């Protein structure tokens, strides 16, 4: 069955220049492999299509049951240049939690 990431994970994000990072953390160890398998860099790039201009990188932190995504070109230049409300990508993380993935019953 499909579940929103909001039910399976929590997240925090920040910025580095024009790049937003999203750390996605499994709420339970059993969810981590699902995140690794389904929340790929390509899937995240599709999720944010039209919202970021650069590529998406993904890093795994099995010790923290977390994935870290770098979303390049996400912040309209970032920092002081950006005209966005979320110029520092503080809540980009919550937008990722809208994604749905397949969870075994």
């Amino acid at each position, binding site marked *: 069955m499909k579940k929103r990431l909001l039910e399976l994970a929590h997240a925090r994000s920040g910025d580095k220049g024009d790049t937003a990072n999203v750390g996605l953390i499994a709420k339970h160890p059993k969810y981590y492999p699902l995140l690794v398998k389904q929340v790929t860099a390509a899937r995240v790039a599709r999720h944010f299509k039209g919202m970021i201009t650069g590529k998406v990188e993904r890093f795994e932190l099995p010790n923290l049951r977390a994935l870290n995504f770098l979303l390049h070109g996400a912040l309209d230049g970032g920092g*002081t240049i950006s*005209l966005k409300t979320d110029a520092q990508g503080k809540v980009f993380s919550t937008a990722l939690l809208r994604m749905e993935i397949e969870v075994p019953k």
Partner: protein
Amino acid sequence: MRSPVRIAAGQGFWGDWLEAPYRQVTGGPVDYLMMDYLAEVTMSILQKQKSRDPSLGYAKDFLPLMERMLPVLAERRIKVTANAGGVNPRACAAAVAEGARRLGLQSKLKIGVVSGDDLLDRLNGLIGRGHDLRNLDTGRPLRDVRDRVVSANAYLGAWPVVEALRRGADVVITGRVTDTGLTLAPLIHAFDWRADAWDLLAAGTVAGHIIECGAQASGGNCLVDWQSIPDLANVGYPIVEASADGTFDIVKHPRTGGRISVPGVTEQLVYEMGDPREYITPDCVADFTTIDLAQVGKDRVRVSGVKGKPATDKLKVSVAYFYGYKAVGTLVYAWPDALQKAEAADRILRERLKGLGLAFEAIHTEFLGVDATHGRLGREAVDSATLPEVQLRIGVRAREQAPVERFTRELAPLILNGPPSVTGFAGGRPKPEEIVAYWPALIDKQVVKPMVEVVEV
């Protein structure tokens, strides 16, 4: 076996809760108070203040805060590390010393000053000797914007702060020392960690990363189970309780609000993270994939297992340069058809700006309540027919001031000559703002010479 060392976080940024540091030094035993003031934009603001008045250029609200705390710090022998010195750490230290004398703390207090991070006056020489200071994002050499540079600071690490502590400083005031270095330095000092003890230095760096944003590690801005986090009004800022082997606990004072939990600390660990295997600081390269977290008590998370690698031979340099101008204005549209009205206003405004022949580098529109934070994903989730109101927020950016200035006069007319049911313009015309942009670069470590002074009050 040496007893644990307790380092309390007092400020996570310039503008953080003024009560937090005082509560940290009075709410229970601590050995050090760490206060982080500097963000990327802060240095350019401080440099501007210094260029107007050479006695300024540091975080001014550090002074009343220190005056309030100094008697407690002296009595309880709590030491302070703070990068409140900004681009003028000496002036900041002199002002703190003056406050200490007013409090009758003569000869009871030593102040350490760490400088040498400021490269502004050395830029031409450095560029001339082949240091290109290429932008880490774009690859362009700094000479392209040299004439517009406002400030330039290398990120110093923990070691100059360690030296100040070794020479007896009670309060160490620094320029651009890394956030993590302010926590790592007391640990190196207290436990005599060696300069090549990479795992220990990495552990201290991770400790610094966890507490550098203050309450973000103790329940503030914490998404997981946020509604059940108790008493944020009285939130306890995080404290590192470290052992000589590099293992440490994150705790907070008793009878304070907030929460220290594994999920909460994990959120802070991934904040502003790049490649987790290579968290690069001037002191070491920490591997965040080696961190073990365990809940070992209520509001107590143990951090262990951290591995590190040797530091690189570069330092990061943060250059601020004048970029251009921007302005952002807003109008609020009410139901019915709130979103459609706001969208119509946006179209009309853009058409008028185009008609005026104004050249902008960017025009950016958001509809708050619809797409400002989640973009297209937010819009897809909203039933626009029922929205009671939508805020149109439109911003422009240009290299010249004139088009931005003209834009600020185009919003108010829409109230009477645009779509209906509009309000919320009480604040008046938006003001054009100067943009000082950030230029990240690297420089060879050997050309940056940190300076340490320790003076008695």
